[in-house]
């Protein structure tokens, strides 16, 4: 902006400048404390009082910590924390407001001007830098084609060296890297469906029409290892619908029993538990992202971001009337992944392997 020396337009008879002139810094009006010693004294007292507030706050915080007893009652715990917090508040705010009030009333408020310098280095500095780099390159032989082998091998070594550290590190961080574990759960043929979390088995007669059970596999609670990992895959919702409302997908005619169906509770979107059941509409809703599945129609998606239906667990009734699994799920439960279809099977492999997948 060339506002200081205004070129005047040539055609114009009157000398009207092309652009306005910077009026310069505005007039600085002194504050009361600058001219009135009484106001200055008053401001000083105010600042001192604010610092005093801070000292009181520190006493409150330390006093609350030392004097107040914390019992097991939530209220008393809250009270102690609140009093310490209020003490810290006063201790901090007193210093803060005091310092700012000091600056605003008693320290300089007449703005000063400082010139900026262009960030670009001077031509001499630039030339010097380039010369130094050239000299350095000359000394090392880089860039003048005297040492291509050294440069080549040196760079290769530098690029490869991180692998020596990273490869073993990363290699160890993924345990056994056996991602085919995504493909199966601990459900086996004949395994009872039990209540979450106590693990008591469920009789078909317990499941009345319209009711829903949160289910874990029998024996999950007794697992020594990977209990949470297995639970994260194996949780199931057990529901009974009026058989007349139930549309059974082809090939799954014997997967349910008299309107009782079992579906994986893990959302096929990104894996939240699909825990909300709306009895009237037979809809299962995932509270995380609201994928909605219609249980009366093979748990297919009726709304939301999920694409695939919830996997169904084939069930049967054992001799004592308890509900049992016929096999593992016939497809991986939960969110999709690149090789998901490779882990999708006819459900037979799961019956052969034993116990936990680890």
């Amino acid at each position, binding site marked *: 902006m060339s506002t200081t020396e205004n070129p005047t337009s040539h055609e114009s008879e009157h000398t009207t400048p092309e652009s306005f002139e910077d009026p310069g810094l*505005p007039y600085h009006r002194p504050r009361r404390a600058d001219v009135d010693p009484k106001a200055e004294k008053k401001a000083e007292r105010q600042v001192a009082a604010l610092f005093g507030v801070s000292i009181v706050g520190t006493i409150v915080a330390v006093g609350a910590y030392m004097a107040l007893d914390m019992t097991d009652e939530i209220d008393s715990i809250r009270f102690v924390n609140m009093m310490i917090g209020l003490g810290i508040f*006063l201790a901090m*705010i007193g210093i803060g407001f005091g310092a700012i009030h000091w600056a605003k009333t008693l320290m300089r408020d007449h703005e000063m001007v400082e010139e900026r310098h262009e960030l670009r280095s001077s031509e001499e500095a630039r030339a010097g830098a380039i010369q130094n780099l050239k000299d350095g390159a000359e000394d090392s032989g880089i860039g003048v084609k005297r040492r291509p082998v050294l440069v080549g091998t040196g760079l290769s070594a530098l690029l490869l060296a991180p692998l020596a550290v990273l490869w073993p590190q990363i290699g160890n961080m993924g345990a056994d890297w056996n991602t085919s574990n995504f493909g199966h759960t601990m459900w086996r043929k004949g395994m009872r469906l039990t209540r979450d979390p106590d693990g008591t088995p469920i009789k078909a007669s317990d499941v009345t029409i319209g009711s829903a059970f*949160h289910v874990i596999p029998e024996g999950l609670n007794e697992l020594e290892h990977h209990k949470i990992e297995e639970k994260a895959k194996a949780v199931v919702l057990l529901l009974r619908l009026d058989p007349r409302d139930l549309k059974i997908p082809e090939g799954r005619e014997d997967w349910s029993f008299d309107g009782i169906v079992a579906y994986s509770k893990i959302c096929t*979107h990104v894996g939240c538990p699909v*825990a909300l059941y709306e009895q009237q509409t037979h809809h299962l809703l995932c509270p*995380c992202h609201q994928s909605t599945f219609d249980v009366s129609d093979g748990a297919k998606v009726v709304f939301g971001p999920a694409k695939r239906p919830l996997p169904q667990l084939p069930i049967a009734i054992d001799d004592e009337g308890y509900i049992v699994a016929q096999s593992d799920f016939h497809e991986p439960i939960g*969110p999709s992944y690149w090789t998901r279809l490779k882990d999708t099977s006819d459900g037979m492999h799961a019956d052969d392997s034993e116990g936990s997948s680890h």
Partner: protein
Amino acid sequence: MGARVNTAAAGTANWVDERTSIGGFVKFFARKLFPDHWSFMLGEIALYSFVVLLLSGVFLTAFFVPSMTIVEYDGPLATMKGVEMSEAFASTLHMSFEVPGGLLMRQIHHWSALLFTAAIVTHMARVFFTGAFRKPRELNWLVGFTLMILSLAAGFSGYSLPDDVLSGNGLRIIEGVTRSVPIVGEYISYWIFGGEFPGEILIPRLFTMHVLLVPGLILVLVALHLFLVFLHKHTQYPGGGRKDTNVVGLPLFPVYTAKAGGFFFVVFGVIALVAAIFTINPVWNYGPYDPSPVSAGTQPDWYILFVDGALRLMPGWLFDVIPMEWEFWGYTLSLNILTPALILPGLFFGFLALYPWIEAWATGDRGEKHVLDRPRNAPVRTGIGVALISFYVILVMEGSNDIIANLFHLSLNDLTYFFRIGIFVIPVLAFWITRRLAIGLQRKDRELVLHGKETGRIVRHEHGEYQEVHEPLTDQERWVLVSYDDIAPLEIEPEYNDRGVRRKGYRWDRFKQRLSRLYFEKRISPVTPEELAEAQHAHH
């Protein structure tokens, strides 16, 4: 006594200077000038809440046990008696209920984390709308942008540490998103979790990330950010005597030492007050992580809501017929997850990070800019900014759609349908309306400069005409309204030269010209003295 103190101080200063040559630094720093404006405090809030995070965080590490080993709860909280939980969760309960002031420190830490991210985003918006990212500050914009991303990482990793049901489900969502990455997703998931979700190693890993890696990076980048602020000297708003070649303000010592130093204590005090009174993240109500339960109305911390909203917004089936998850050659590609969780944030943040270069390139403006733009004087940039914010806000609202639906008795599904359309329409509208408003405000500025302020005083002239008296602006007021750059759209060489031969690179030039026109075609030029003289002449 004063003399003795002075001698001692001089002695100490001499001792230090002879070993560090610190005198030069003090000379450089002590009277450095900083311009004054309330909006310059937003970045300070971010810095100070980070300091509060460090202070309270150190206290928390004294009690937190980053372990996923399962223990049975045996503390004072009756509702959790005998419940199986990880040591991480148990130690969180311990520090909340058995350590006096522990709950307070947790709440101070959590509130300052929310404030930290909020202050960063607001500061970033200030820098964007005033054009403070322009040359020579593009690199510092990038440093600040990286700090913003790191603050999200710091927030999310800390949020997950207590190992409660809410944060556990959040981690499971992360796992689901990770898996959706083509080819390597499954392995990245195994790499992060040390095997299958949730595994037994994640909390210790997140802990190291949260207390060492991320804050270490933040510290380094904060130092770089501030170094560049000092190097560039602070920007200033337009006003009399403020030029691109100077800085007008008050000295660091003592004015800003007191003001900015005092402001740290104010920020700390306010956080302490909020933390003393308002409960946040009461993990004891949620319970320890268990893969089975989840409650309705689950919301992540505010800064993650936009990703959650994007995940909710994306349909699994487009118009109920086109699947958004594709299966081909035996592989699965989940666009219903990849698009909202990775592609969309990638584009959004990528655009934001590169904006200084995009604008400089589109406008061809290459000079050093130290006087800030008033947002109305850059209508297109302001429009883009508001469009980005509206886009972000729609995602945040979709991330809270269940709460909105509940509060206003709306259908959850209708809300989602509305936002699915809104995400395409509203940002465009926001851009258009904002640009119109900015141009309108520029016109109003011209009006003010030409005709002065309305005074509300009506006078009757001798010939019976009534007229309101307008008071001309002062030189200072006028200068603020007229001192901005008036850039004309790019002119390019014609497509064919005089011999009718088509010019190489014409299309590219034409593209640049279009961008330049987008920025500058609909511009309002500042009033010239000549126009003012004419207007004044007309009045008399």
